[in-house]
């Protein structure tokens, strides 16, 4: 947590509405993205995000600063998401076929050739559909890890569970994803955006560096 973020949190805890408003603008995109990934539609994502910030405003006096503010927000988001799930009383099919295709088509990046673009769109579509089909606890950990780059410890704090549970959920989610994608022939990973190469992160990072170690 940066100094300016800490200062804003401290001011917001003291009742400064302006500081809380700044915090909302700092985190609204991240919270909204996570809510979108969990609910799969714009309206529910907006409602869930708004509810998250309103709950955070009411509970900020109880924020002790043991975790980052975003992790704390994420925990509130997940609690609200679970309530939302219970209210819906149905298994959440995050995005239907049409929606998924639309999302994938809308979000395809610029690629050098049309055939490559089409191929990558298709792959993004398939992978996203597979992620959407995961049980919601596995989907949550995959979203937190892959979209927000949260460490296992941060995920454990947000989900109020142990690091070991996070580890097994992430592993199970990846195995399920692979299984689902292998069932469809011709799976190839979408072209990377240059953020990382194909080597495992464990071999990229210095020993013990980056993220939280665990047994």
């Amino acid at each position, binding site marked *: 947590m940066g100094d300016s973020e800490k200062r804003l949190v401290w001011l917001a805890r003291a009742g400064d*509405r302006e500081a*809380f*408003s700044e915090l*909302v603008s700092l985190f*609204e*995109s991240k919270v*909204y*993205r996570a809510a*979108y*990934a969990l609910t799969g539609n714009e309206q529910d994502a*907006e409602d869930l*995000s*708004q509810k998250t*910030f*309103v709950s955070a*405003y009411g509970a900020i006096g109880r924020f002790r600063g043991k975790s980052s503010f975003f992790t704390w927000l994420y925990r509130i988001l997940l609690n609200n998401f679970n309530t939302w799930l219970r209210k819906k009383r149905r298994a959440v099919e995050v995005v239907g076929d049409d929606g998924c295709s639309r*999302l*994938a088509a*809308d*979000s*395809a*990046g610029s690629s050098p050739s049309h055939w490559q673009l089409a191929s990558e769109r298709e*792959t*993004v579509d398939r*992978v*996203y559909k597979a*992620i959407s089909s995961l049980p919601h606890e596995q989907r949550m950990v*995959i*979203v937190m890890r*892959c*979209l927000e780059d949260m460490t*296992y410890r941060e995920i454990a704090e947000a989900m109020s569970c142990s690091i070991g549970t996070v*580890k097994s959920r*992430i*592993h199970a989610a*990846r195995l399920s*994803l*692979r299984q689902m*994608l292998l069932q469809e022939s011709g799976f190839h*990973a*979408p*072209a*990377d*955006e240059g*953020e*990382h190469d*194909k*080597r*495992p*992160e*464990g071999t990229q*990072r210095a*020993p*013990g*560096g*980056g*993220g939280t*170690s*665990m*047994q």
Partner: protein
Amino acid sequence: MKCRKVRDNLSAYADGELRLRLRRRVETHLAACENCATELSRLVEITDAAKTSLRRVFSDKAPRSNFRERVMQATEPVRVRRPILVTAGKLAAAAVTIALASGLVVGGVQELRFRGERAAFRQKDAEQRRALVLATADSKRASAQLRKAEARLSKVETQLRLATAIRKKDDRLVEEGPSRRPRSWPPMLSSLQMPGADSLLKNGLF
């Protein structure tokens, strides 16, 4: 390390979330086991695919532009407007209330004053009690010292009386002549066990 245990840890290994010791054991195994190394590369591939997919899908997703305003509006405290008392009956009730309240205020002020006086009195009383206790303790200590001194004096007087009796007896012996004098001289001073007896003997007081 067995393949099963290595595979349970492969995701955490790929995420750089294993502790150094376990990571080295996994690496040692991976260097020797082609199947586990292949499994790792598949996991890395699926992880990268999930990252790329999620980031592309959500890269341009953002809430509507007035999101912050709506949140802040939703967190505003609710103001409840109360109707103003306008009728005569209500005004009368208000007047009675005010009168009672003012009486209560006067009474309250007086009560506060008496409470203050009572507190001051209690404090003074407590100080006097403390001084008395201290004086009593001093007095007891002084009495004990006095009793001890009297006992010491009584003992010394007894010893003095004994010494005087011995001296008189010796005087008599001297007057009667050397043949009657006992062999040891002085015969009983050693039995006196009197403080300062040696100095008394040296100075010729006995």
